[in-house]
């Protein structure tokens, strides 16, 4: 059962990813990204990360991708990107090398070594996943105790993004139009 789910979802995930990379129209890319995210969410369920599966859907599909689409619409970036030509010489060849390199090496590393050094001695794990409590509660516990600093730090992160968005979207008071005009051509 798990195997089947994995295979299907893996297929979806990869298909979506390839869609993002290959779609000439940004809108399509965004939609195939959604596909990937869904597949990912299911895989999370597969791995008993129920809470995160939900968050994945809400935050990613619900917020991020929508944001993408908004921006696409806002800017009217519907011009199709011509993927048949690559202006930078050698970019794709090297990119391919990078791809093969990264993937190949990563796989090599992954398969070469066992996770969490089982057998190489005790690992001081303080946060065992127990079956007594829900996944949500366990995360909550950790989040508000050991990771409370990180949790608070996210506040700074979000503040920055808000301020940043404001700063960047502010229209310059004077002489801006001229700037734009010059910028356009």
């Amino acid at each position: 059962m798990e195997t089947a789910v994995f295979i299907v979802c893996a297929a979806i995930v990869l298909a979506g990813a390839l869609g993002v990379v290959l779609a000439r129209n940004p809108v399509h890319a965004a939609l195939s990204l959604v596909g990937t995210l869904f597949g990912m969410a299911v895989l999370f369920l597969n791995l008993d990360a129920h809470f995160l599966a939900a968050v994945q859907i809400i935050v990613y599909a619900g917020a991020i991708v929508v944001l993408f689409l908004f921006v696409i619409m806002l800017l009217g970036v519907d011009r199709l990107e011509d993927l048949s030509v690559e202006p930078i010489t050698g970019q794709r060849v090297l990119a391919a090398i990078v791809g093969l390199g990264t993937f190949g090496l990563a796989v090599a590393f992954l398969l070469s070594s066992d996770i969490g050094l089982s057998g190489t001695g005790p690992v001081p794990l303080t946060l065992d996943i127990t079956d007594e409590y829900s996944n949500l509660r366990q995360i909550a516990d950790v989040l508000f105790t050991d990771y409370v600093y990180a949790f608070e730090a996210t506040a700074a992160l979000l503040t920055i993004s808000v301020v940043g968005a404001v700063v960047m979207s502010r229209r310059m008071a004077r002489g801006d139009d001229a700037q734009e005009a010059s910028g356009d051509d």
Partner: protein
Amino acid sequence: MVTASWYLILAAGLFTIGAVGLLVRRNPLIMFMCVELMLNAVNLTFITFGRELNDIGGQVSVFFVLVVAAAEVVVGLAIVVAINRRRPQATADDLSALRG
């Protein structure tokens, strides 16, 4: 039975696709999406390890990654919007005034 390796390899593949995508696409938005792909791959890795280690830390990390991803996207899109106000339809390659 699916071993952890499968998930990890899948994640690696996803990460690679994201990286390559960022290298080959010119549209900034799609480049961001590729970054999102890479982050997702990392998330998958985290959760897989978390399960293998029977450690909740992996999942918690993913939670934070999600937040970071969201914040990043906001800032990134804000910059793109600002640029497009000046130069609509600008691709990544168009922005090469600074060089040398």
